[in-house]
């Protein structure tokens, strides 16, 4: 039998009602989590940097390796696939590099997103902190990776000048939209993967498949020129990642902006966040039990 006493040792006033607080499955708590995490940005900002420095600790070039490995892969793939598809290296190399740059960001959000709570198991179980803190930290880390990789794009733009104009500034809102989407992907896949541990490997193999389905090392336009495969090439449009790549790649390469891609991305952003928020509301409090 539980005996309740107050700090003074006297009997508790059992009748006194508890302050009215929203339960674990409420919108208030879900949004509180998000805003509280946001307020701790000096923490996740710091941790995100730390993650990157950690990976290259004691190496001479440090985080510069991110840019170097990206440059090596982009050059190799650009030359190889450029030869295979008979493309002009002057346009194809920047095309591959830019696509790869954006893909790396998306892939990072998806792959690491599914492990976000599993990887932070210790922190979640021993330090009270909003769940969203880990989400912000992860997306921030991907942004930092992206920033390192952008150097490669800048160098390529200098070597192979492209017609960049005012419309290229559309790259900024495009990237902002990408980051926004990184948020919901991380929340959703993170929560699901914590509950169902088969999800990370499924996600890992799917992303590999998606990479080849997405016009990164091959050109979508080139396929459409070829009447034999033009029909089948349309299937690529069903791949949502294509639209994410295009909204950012078009302005970065100085191409005309196709608004169709923006509409698709807009719809995905809204739907994705709606689903992620519902998930956050219902299962936020359970994650600590599941990790």
């Amino acid at each position, binding site marked *: 039998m539980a005996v*309740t006493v*107050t700090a003074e040792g006297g009997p508790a006033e059992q009748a006194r009602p508890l302050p009215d607080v929203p339960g674990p499955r409420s919108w208030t708590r879900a949004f509180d989590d998000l805003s509280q995490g946001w307020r701790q940005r000096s923490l996740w900002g710091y941790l995100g940097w730390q993650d990157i420095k950690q990976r290259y600790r004691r190496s001479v070039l440090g985080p510069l390796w991110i840019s170097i490995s990206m440059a090596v892969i982009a050059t190799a793939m650009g030359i190889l696939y450029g030869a295979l598809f008979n493309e002009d290296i002057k346009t194809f190399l920047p095309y591959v590099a830019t696509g790869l740059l954006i893909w790396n960001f998306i892939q990072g959000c998806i792959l690491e997103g599914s492990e976000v709570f599993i990887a932070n198991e210790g*922190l979640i179980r021993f330090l009270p902190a909003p769940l969203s803190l880990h989400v912000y930290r992860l997306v921030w880390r991907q942004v930092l990776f992206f920033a390192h990789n952008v150097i490669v794009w800048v160098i390529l733009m200098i070597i192979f000048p492209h017609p960049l104009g005012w419309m290229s500034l559309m790259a900024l809102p495009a990237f902002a939209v990408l980051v926004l989407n990184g948020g919901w992907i991380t929340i959703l896949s993170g929560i699901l993967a914590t509950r169902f541990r088969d999800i990370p490997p499924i996600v890992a193999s799917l992303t590999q498949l998606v990479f080849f389905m997405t016009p990164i090392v091959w050109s979508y336009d080139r396929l459409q020129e070829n009447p034999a495969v033009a029909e089948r090439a349309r299937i690529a449009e069903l791949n949502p990642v294509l639209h994410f790549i295009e909204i950012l790649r078009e302005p970065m390469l100085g191409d005309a902006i196709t608004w169709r891609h923006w509409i698709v991305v807009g719809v995905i952003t809204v739907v994705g966040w709606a689903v992620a928020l519902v998930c956050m509301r219902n299962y936020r409090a359970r994650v600590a039990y599941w990790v």
Partner: protein
Amino acid sequence: MTDPTIDIRDARVDFPIFDAKSRSLKKAVLGKAGGRIGTESKVPIIEALRDINLSLRKGARVALVGHNGAGKSTLLRLMSGIYEPTRGQAVVQGKVAPVFDLAVGMDPEITGLDNILIRGLFLGMTKKQMESRVDDIAAFTELGDYLDMPLRTYSTGMRVRLALGVVTSIDPEILLLDEGIGAVDAQFLAKARDRLNELVERSGILVFASHSDEFLADLCDTAIWMEHGTIREHGPLREVLHHYKGHDVLAELERR
């Protein structure tokens, strides 16, 4: 600033234990297809805490005693807000500073100073606030130049010093200590004790889980005896310890 409070009403904490099979998608998907009810009910559950009723006010210094696995740590984590109760309510108001697992939230590769900063940020401080406290923490922990060394070079006792230095410097209102801070030497222990006492007097609630009667006697005046996930007894420290151990522990300590 309102006084810190902890109110727990009819709370229970149930852990679902997913073995490799039931945690997989296969079962959930196949289970649905077969027309059965969800797999959720088939997952074995550990009732870590049940029927917890508790009300702590400012000035409470509570000792948590009980055998291993009695639910002491889980109760502490319920108070810290890490676990939200499966049923019932737990309302905690005030700035919580937990010292649970000392290895967690500490990065072995970065310096002691950086770890102090991260810990502080995790506990809701700002960077500026932590920077102004660093000297104080450095003085309290007596780690000196060691603070510029990576944490992996620290001994367990030194890590405890660091963790205690941080939580006691940030003016927490609710201090939750789990066992394991016994790794420091006697001299530092006395110093930490004074500081903790000071802190509880100023503002706050202390809940301390430990097997060390001496330490409990120094810091706490009431006690909660946990058994099989329930509160077996909650009352003055002396009585509860007497019932728990079967002999008057405090009297024996005084006699020494």
